[in-house]
C-alpha cells in the first residue's frame, strides 16, 4: 500500500532525526567535557544517557518484533489477546504507575510527610473494585474499547460518540500532564537538552512504538518499565532502610528530627499549613477510587488477555505490584527527608530553606538515588523515570487512537462495516495525530499551571466512564437515553465545576474567589449522573428502549459465562 510506504518513510526520517539529536546530546559533552554545565543543575549524567539509550534500543527491538507479529486489528488493539495474567498484571502496573506517582508521591511525602500516604491509598483502592465488578465482564463483552461494552445492547452511534468524547478528553489532558512532566524531568536531568527537544523525543518514540508495534509493543514497553521501576524503587527503599538500620521507628524519628516542620509531618491529614476541608477530602477519595476504575487506557488492558480468567488474575498481580510500589514510595519520601534535605549538594540555599531543591519540587526521589548510589544509580533512576513516562504515554495514545478509529471511524462513520486494514490504518494515523498534538500541547503548556489535570482526568473518568460502564453491565433498565444523558452530565458537570473551582477560576484564570469552592467535583457530579441516568432510563418508553432492556439477558449470559466472547488469536 502506497500510504504505508509514506508513513514508513516518515517514520524513518523521524527516527533518524531522533538518533541524530541523541547522538548530539551524547557528543556535545564528549567534545567539551568541561563545558559550562550550569553549577545549579546536576552535572551531565552519562550514566542516565547510556542507560536511557539501552532502554530505547531494547524497546525498539521489541517494537520491530511486535511489528512483524502485528497483522490483524486484534493484534494491533489487543496484542492478539495473547497476554497472560502475570504479563497483563505487570503491564497494568506499568500503565498505571506514572512518573507523577513515583516522583510525585515521594515529593508529597518529602514536603508533607504522612499526608502523601492518603494519595497512595486512594490510588490503589480502585483496583479491587475493577476486579470485583468489571474486569471479567469487560473481557467477556468487549472487543477493543470500553465503549464496546456499553454499546453492547444500546445504540451504537450516540453511545460511541459520548464514550469517545470522554475518553479523548481524559487521554489528551493526561497526555499534556505526562508531556509537561517529561519535558521538565529530562531538561532538569540533562540541561543540555531543551524542554522542547525532550518532549519531541518522547513524541517520536511513542509514535514509533505504537504505530509500528501496536498493543504488543506497548504491552512489552510497559512490562519492562514496570520491572525496572519496581526494581529501582526496591533498591532505593533498601538503601534507605540499610541506612536506618532496618528500623522503621528510627526512619520516622530521624525524619521528624531533620524535617523543618518537625512532628507536624506525622500529624497533618491535609497539606501542611492548609485548612482542613472535610467535603474536599471525601470528594478526593471518591475521585481517586472511581477515577482509577474509569481510565480508558486502563480498561483497554483487559481486552488483551487470553480469557476472563487471565483478566481476573492480572488484577491481583497488578494490585499487589502497585500496592508494593506505593509502600516503597512512602519509604523513599521519608528517606529523602533524611538523606536529601539539609544537604547543600541538593538544596538551593541551606540557610534559607533546607527543603528547597535544585531543579524543583519533583526531585526528592532523583536526588535520593544519588545519595544512595552515586551518579550510576542516579542515572539508572533517571532513565527509569523517563521509561515510565514513555510507557504511560504509549498506553494513553493507543487508548485515544482506539476511541477515534474503533468508536468514531469504524462504528459511527462506517456503521460497523469498516475494512479491518483501513480501520487499523486510521488508528495509526490517529496515533501520529495524537502524538504530534501531545508534543504541541506539552510545549504550549510549559509555563502553565497544570495542577488541575489530575482532578480533571480522574473526575471525568469517575463521573462518566465508571458509572455508565457499571450501569450498563449490571442494570437491565439502562437505556441509550439514560446512558447518554448520564454520560454527558458527567463530562460537562465535571468540566463546568472544575472551571468555576478554586484551581482554575482563581489560580489559572485569576478571576477572584471561586464560585464552586471545591477542587474535586465528584461528590456532586457522581450522584447527579446516577440520578440522571436512572430517571432518563425509567421514563424512556420508546420501542428501542424496550428492545434494549430485552437484550440484557443475553448480554448477561455472555458477561457471566464468556460464551461468544472474543477468542485469543491463533499465532
Amino acid at each position: 500500500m502506497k500510504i504505508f510506504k509514506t508513513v514508513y518513510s516518515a517514520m524513518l526520517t523521524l527516527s533518524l532525526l531522533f538518533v541524530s539529536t541523541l547522538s548530539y546530546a551524547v557528543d556535545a559533552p564528549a567534545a567539551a567535557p568541561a563545558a559550562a554545565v550550569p553549577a545549579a543543575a546536576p552535572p551531565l549524567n552519562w550514566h542516565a544517557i547510556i542507560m536511557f539509550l539501552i532502554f530505547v534500543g531494547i524497546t525498539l527491538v521489541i517494537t520491530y518484533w511486535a511489528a512483524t507479529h502485528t497483522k490483524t486489528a486484534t493484534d494491533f488493539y489487543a496484542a492478539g489477546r495473547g497476554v497472560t495474567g502475570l504479563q497483563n498484571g505487570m503491564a497494568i502496573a506499568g500503565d498505571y504507575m506514572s512518573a507523577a506517582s513515583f516522583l510525585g508521591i515521594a515529593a508529597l511525602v518529602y514536603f508533607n510527610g504522612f499526608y502523601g500516604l492518603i494519595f497512595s491509598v486512594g490510588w490503589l483502592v480502585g483496583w479491587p473494585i475493577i476486579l470485583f465488578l468489571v474486569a471479567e465482564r469487560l473481557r467477556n463483552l468487549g472487543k477493543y474499547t470500553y465503549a464496546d461494552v456499553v454499546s453492547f445492547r444500546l445504540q451504537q452511534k450516540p453511545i460511541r460518540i459520548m464514550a469517545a468524547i470522554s475518553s479523548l478528553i481524559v487521554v489528551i489532558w493526561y497526555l499534556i500532564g505526562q508531556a509537561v512532566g517529561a519535558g521538565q524531568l529530562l531538561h532538569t536531568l540533562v540541561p543540555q537538552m531543551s524542554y522542547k527537544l525532550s518532549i519531541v523525543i518522547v513524541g517520536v518514540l511513542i509514535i514509533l512504538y505504537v504505530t509500528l508495534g501496536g498493543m504488543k509493543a506497548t504491552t512489552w514497553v510497559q512490562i519492562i518499565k514496570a520491572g525496572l521501576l519496581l526494581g529501582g524503587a526496591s533498591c532505593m527503599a533498601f538503601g534507605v532502610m540499610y541506612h536506618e538500620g532496618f528500623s522503621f521507628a528510627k526512619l520516622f524519628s530521624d525524619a521528624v528530627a531533620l524535617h523543618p516542620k518537625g512532628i507536624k509531618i506525622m500529624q497533618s491529614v491535609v497539606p501542611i499549613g492548609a485548612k482542613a476541608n472535610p467535603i474536599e477530602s471525601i470528594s478526593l477519595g471518591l475521585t481517586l477510587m472511581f477515577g482509577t476504575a474509569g481510565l480508558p487506557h486502563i480498561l483497554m488492558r483487559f481486552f488483551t488477555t487470553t480469557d476472563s480468567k487471565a483478566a481476573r488474575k492480572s488484577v491481583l498481580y497488578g494490585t499487589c505490584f502497585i500496592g508494593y510500589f506505593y509502600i516503597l514510595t512512602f519509604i523513599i519520601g521519608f528517606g529523602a527527608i533524611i538523606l536529601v534535605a539539609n544537604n547543600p549538594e541538593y538544596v538551593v540555599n541551606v540557610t534559607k530553606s533546607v527543603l528547597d531543591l535544585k531543579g524543583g519540587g519533583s526531585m526528592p526521589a532523583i536526588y535520593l538515588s544519588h545519595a544512595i548510589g552515586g551518579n550510576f544509580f542516579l542515572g539508572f533512576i533517571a532513565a527509569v523515570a523517563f521509561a515510565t513516562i514513555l510507557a504511560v504515554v504509549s498506553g494513553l495514545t493507543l487508548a485515544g487512537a482506539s476511541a477515534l478509529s474503533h468508536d468514531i471511524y469504524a462504528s459511527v462513520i462506517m456503521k460497523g462495516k469498516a475494512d479491518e486494514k483501513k480501520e487499523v490504518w486510521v488508528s495509526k494515523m490517529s496515533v501520529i495525530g495524537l502524538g504530534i498534538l501531545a508534543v504541541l500541547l506539552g510545549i504550549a503548556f510549559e509555563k502553565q499551571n497544570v495542577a488541575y489535570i489530575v482532578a480533571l482526568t480522574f473526575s471525568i473518568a469517575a463521573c462518566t466512564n465508571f458509572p455508565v460502564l457499571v450501569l450498563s453491565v449490571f442494570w437491565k433498565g439502562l437505556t441509550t437515553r439514560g446512558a447518554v444523558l448520564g454520560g454527558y452530565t458527567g463530562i460537562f458537570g465535571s468540566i463546568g465545576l472544575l472551571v468555576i473551582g478554586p484551581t482554575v477560576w482563581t489560580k489559572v484564570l485569576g478571576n477572584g474567589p471561586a464560585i464552586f469552592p471545591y477542587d474535586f467535583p465528584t461528590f456532586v457530579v457522581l450522584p447527579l449522573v446516577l440520578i440522571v441516568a436512572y430517571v432518563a432510563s425509567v421514563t424512556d418508553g420508546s420501542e428501542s428502549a424496550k428492545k434494549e432492556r430485552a437484550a440484557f439477558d443475553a448480554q448477561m449470559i455472555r458477561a457471566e459465562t464468556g460464551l461468544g466472547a472474543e477468542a485469543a488469536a491463533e499465532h
Partner: protein
Amino acid sequence: MSLLIASNIQNNPKYLELVHRRNTLGWTLSAIVCIMYFGFTLMIAYAPDILTNPIAPGSVIPMGMLLGLGVIVASCATTGIYVYIANKTFDPIIAEIVREASK
C-alpha cells in the same frame, strides 16, 4: 449465540447459582473495600485526631500510617480472596454450563 442456547442457559440452575454467587461475592467484597476506604476517608475529614495520635506513647508513628498501610494490604488481600474463590468455584461451574449448553 442462538436464542435456544440462551434460553437453555437461562433456565439452567447452575447458571442462576453462578450469577448469584459471583454477584454476592463481588458486591460484598466491594462493600468491604468501600467501608474500609471511606472509613479512612471519613476519619481524615471528621476525626483526624484518631489518625494523628501516635500508635504508642513516645512514638512518632501516627495511627493513620498503620491504618493507611492496612487499607493497602487489605486491598491486595481482598483481590486475592476473590481470585482464589473465582478460580476454585466459578470456573468449574462456567465450564459445566458451557458444556451443557453446547450439547
